[in-house]
């Protein structure tokens, strides 16, 4: 279906990534956000709080991130599309409720504008240090989806995608921005509402009384009940059966947790988004994401000027990790170069997927700024020899 025009600010704008993300949420149909604003994500909800009354919706400033991350889930079960935004310290506090959203299959979006950590770290400066936290930060086995925009335009586009994925797969979806992308201002083109594809909530057509709230469809995802129409549902973080009632047996645990993972794993090809350029014939492939992909592009251009055959692979979905694509590239290139604003996170996935078929060279950076293109160029030149 198409976006509701009420939330779509069609036109060309000069927006920072945070504001563009807010417009993406509004275009996707988000009408509720509960937040505990934190730098460098504050502008997302600041704009949402100012815009949403004109569209018809609610923003609540909560007492902390625990409240923010659980309140939005209540809104979702009440029928709204909802999200919250945060940065590292708040993201850490949200982990428990992210687990609840996974277990209860609550479609919702979390935006993490990454800053330097650990702890309060560098409030106003960039990092990409939450990439493993988003994958593994809550306890237990699960799969989530995480998207990495590298421009304000993508902050808009991928926030829409995040909402769509969350509705399609009934899973929390994460927009993993960084401070630079969040605070840089560029042209953002917001299309007319009829050109924005929005995935509606999967409401059941089975009448109350016959409906089983967690009975999966063929794609392993259950449909949702419409609140207020007589459906009595039980929603719990405990291991539950298809009715939603606790069933804490090894057999049910096996069935439920495998389904929660498999609904993502069996759809990896539909979910995975990436940008590949000049991989064929390349000696070196640079794998990057977020703001680092733009710095890496400059290094790639400099390397090509020197006659080095360099390909680019940009992760747009960091999770699920595009391991099939990386494995294929590993069979063709001599080496991968992986710059990221952390001391070694997604590079481990590249190493795992490459499985020893190609050298993997990490270009670490503790955060607080972006790489110098020359540092990435140096790594490219070394592995190309």
């Amino acid at each position, binding site marked *: 279906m198409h976006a509701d025009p009420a939330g779509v600010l069609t036109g*060309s*704008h*000069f927006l920072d990534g945070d504001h563009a993300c807010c417009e993406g949420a509004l275009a996707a149909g988000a009408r509720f956000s509960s937040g505990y604003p934190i*730098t*460098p994500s504050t502008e997302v909800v600041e704009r949402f709080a100012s815009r949403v009354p004109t569209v018809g919706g609610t923003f609540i400033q909560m007492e902390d991130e625990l409240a923010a991350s659980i309140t939005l889930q209540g809104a979702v079960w009440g029928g709204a599309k909802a999200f919250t935004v945060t940065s590292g310290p708040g993201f850490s506090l949200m982990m428990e409720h992210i687990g609840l959203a996974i277990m209860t299959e609550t479609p919702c979006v979390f935006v993490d504008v990454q800053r330097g950590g650990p702890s309060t770290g560098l*409030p*106003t*400066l960039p990092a990409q240090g939450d990439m493993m936290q988003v994958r593994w930060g809550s306890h237990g086995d699960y799969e989530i989806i995480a998207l990495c925009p590298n421009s304000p335009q993508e902050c808009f586009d991928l926030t829409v995608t995040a909402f769509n994925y969350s509705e399609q797969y009934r899973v929390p979806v994460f927009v993993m921005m960084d*401070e*630079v992308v969040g*605070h*840089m*201002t*560029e*042209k953002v083109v917001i299309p007319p509402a009829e050109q924005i594809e929005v995935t509606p909530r999967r409401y059941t057509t089975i009448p109350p009384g016959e409906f089983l709230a967690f009975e999966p469809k063929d794609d392993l995802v259950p449909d949702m009940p419409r609140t207020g129409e007589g459906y009595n549902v039980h929603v719990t973080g405990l291991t539950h059966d298809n009715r939603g009632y606790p069933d804490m047996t090894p057999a049910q645990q096996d069935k439920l947790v495998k389904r929660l993972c498999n609904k993502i794993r069996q759809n990896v090809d539909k979910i995975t988004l990436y940008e590949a350029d000049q991989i064929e014939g390349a000696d070196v492939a640079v794998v990057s994401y977020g*703001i680092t992909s*733009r*710095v890496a*592009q*400059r290094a790639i*251009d400099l390397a090509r000027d020197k006659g080095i055959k360099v390909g680019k692979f940009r992760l747009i979905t960091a999770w699920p990790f595009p391991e099939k694509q990386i494995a294929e590239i590993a069979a063709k290139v001599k080496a991968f170069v992986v710059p990221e604003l952390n001391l070694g996170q997604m590079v481990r996935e590249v190493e795992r997927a490459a499985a020893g078929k190609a050298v993997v060279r990490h270009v670490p950076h503790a955060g607080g700024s*972006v790489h110098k*293109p020359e540092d990435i160029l140096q790594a490219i030149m070394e592995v190309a020899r």
Partner: protein
Amino acid sequence: MQHLTEIRIAGFGGQGVILSAIVIGKAGCIFEGGYSTMTQSFGPEARGGACSAQVILSDQPVLYPYVTRPDILVVMSQEAYTIFAPQVRENGILVIEQDLVRVDKLPAGVRVYSCPATRLAEDLGKKMVLNIVMVGFFGAVSGVLKPDSLRDAVAASVPEAYRDLNRKAFDKGYEYGIKTLNGEIPAEEPQIEVAALET
């Protein structure tokens, strides 16, 4: 628009540094159809501290988002001048608020243009529009963007109630810039003691 123009605007917090950068960036990508990327230094200080914004204008998508060697530096405080003037590219342009900045040594070939933007803004009755006066002056002396693009970007970036005032501020700065280029401005403008302003 040239292939790549790196611009830094710097001054005190509260002078409207960020808005000037927004106007220039918006003129480049919305009103001239090129590409522009604007970033700003975020610090805990909100007012009165050092404030700096960077705009990269290009006819191609901008990759690296930060300015390394500005082609054009616009400064509205002595502190900003001291920090950033050594970074100006050879044969670049330095634009100063002449009552607030005293120029000493500079990289080779840098052209200096000075504008009493605060006084010109005061003539309009609102000192706060000095940033837009500076944008007008910058537009005239640098020639990197069309004056109409900048003027439209000013109007699109300020609240409706202040549009006329800001348009006037832009025009005042722009005219002063044209006069400067034509050599119609007397060379010996009085300069206020910098030390007195910094207290």
